[in-house]
């Protein structure tokens, strides 16, 4: 007895297996009961973000059901592209992209553009930039994001997509050059991609289920 004290007897494992089974059943039931609502909430959040970026009169399709995932090679990330249509015609592109080049990790942006890549509006959806410095990119804290509207990346506009501290045409924010440069580069990449996007982008089928990132 004293030497085999530490070996586990099978009879003692049975309650553990029973507990595991009960836990699995409980979680399966709750998951079943909440899955639909969680999906609705996620869709609603994405809808709110999209509605803020693009006025409702710019589209008549359900954006949460009309999207494709696109690889942006410049950033090395996959962006979700929502296709806004009006009367069946291309109206705008909303690109939900994440740049890893922020000062403290990822910055998630939503870039609304004309189909030709001219920027309508940029929103910051998520970031972890320094409070008081990098977080001034938020629309609630400064108007910095507004300078993107109306610009289009590419040679014909003769604009340099960089902060003016680095010889570009964009205003910066003091002590937040890395943050600012990351956002500028990300919007630049999105705008360039949209300019060169093939017509076929608009006819590619959406995946059936909209599962926001």
């Amino acid at each position, binding site marked *: 007895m004293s030497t085999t004290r530490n070996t586990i007897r099978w009879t*003692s494992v049975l309650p553990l297996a029973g*507990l595991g089974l009960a836990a699995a059943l409980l*979680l399966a039931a709750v998951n079943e009961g909440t899955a639909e609502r969680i999906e609705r909430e996620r869709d609603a959040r994405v809808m709110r973000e999209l509605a803020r970026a693009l006025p409702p009169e710019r589209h008549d399709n359900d954006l949460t059901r009309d999207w494709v995932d696109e690889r942006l090679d410049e950033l090395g990330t996959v962006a979700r592209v929502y296709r806004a249509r009006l009367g069946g015609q291309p109206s705008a592109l909303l690109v939900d992209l994440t740049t890893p080049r922020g000062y403290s990790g990822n910055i998630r942006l939503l870039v609304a553009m004309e189909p030709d890549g001219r920027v309508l509006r940029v929103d910051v959806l998520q970031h972890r930039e320094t409070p008081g410095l990098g977080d001034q990119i938020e629309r609630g804290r400064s108007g910095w994001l507004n300078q993107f509207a109306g610009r289009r990346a590419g040679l014909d506009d003769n604009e340099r997509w960089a902060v003016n501290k680095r010889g570009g045409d964009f205003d910066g924010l003091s002590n937040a050059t890395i943050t600012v440069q990351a956002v500028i580069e990300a919007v630049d990449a999105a705008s360039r991609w949209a300019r060169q996007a093939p017509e076929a982008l608009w006819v590619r089928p959406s995946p059936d289920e909209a599962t926001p990132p």
Partner: protein
Amino acid sequence: MNPARRQLWRQGLWEANPGLVQLLGLCPLLAVTTSAVNGLGLGIATLLVLAMTNLAVSLLRHQFRPEIRIPAFVIIIATLVTLIDLLMQAWLHELSVRLGIFIPLIVTNCTILARAEAFASRQPPSRALEDGLAQGLGFALILIVLGGVRELLGQGTLMAGADLLLGSWAAGLSLRLMPESWGFLLALLPPGAFITLGLLLALHQAIVQRQKQHPASLTATEKFQETDA
């Protein structure tokens, strides 16, 4: 309230407070408390997990042999945390997005396993539940105080975003006590979490020390008064 129960609450809220004395679960404590609302949200979630775990562990305490007790507790804790995570995603969606990974990470909060093992597995359900509530409330209070202090120093507000947690009626709870430009940024950054917690620990210690000396000085005064009379 009988003395044994009063002792439970005194332990949880003050004498053996998980955040102030046991110093358990510091990772979420320091990471999430950039605002009072974040602290309150994580505090309520942790409180629920603690109380439910203690209750479940106590109810099942005779079913499990000592060898498999810890794995059984881990299953119970993981199940309850997943349950709460799912329910929050469904009904408190904005808040669960804000608290993000820290809800699932309640699993790793050692306060919960510590209470299950050290207390709930040896006590009847009612006492175990009460201990879970007391310890959870103690932890939640520290989260709220730490979040409140950092929020106030860092951005000059208190309970900003309360509507995300409590519904739209709570928007009126948000206070702005000073302009944002006066904010002391350090308070919101990770070092600020350590410094603020350190100050709270020091305050707690100071009060405990005073209480230890206080009864002595009180009796001394009383004696003095008695002799004087």
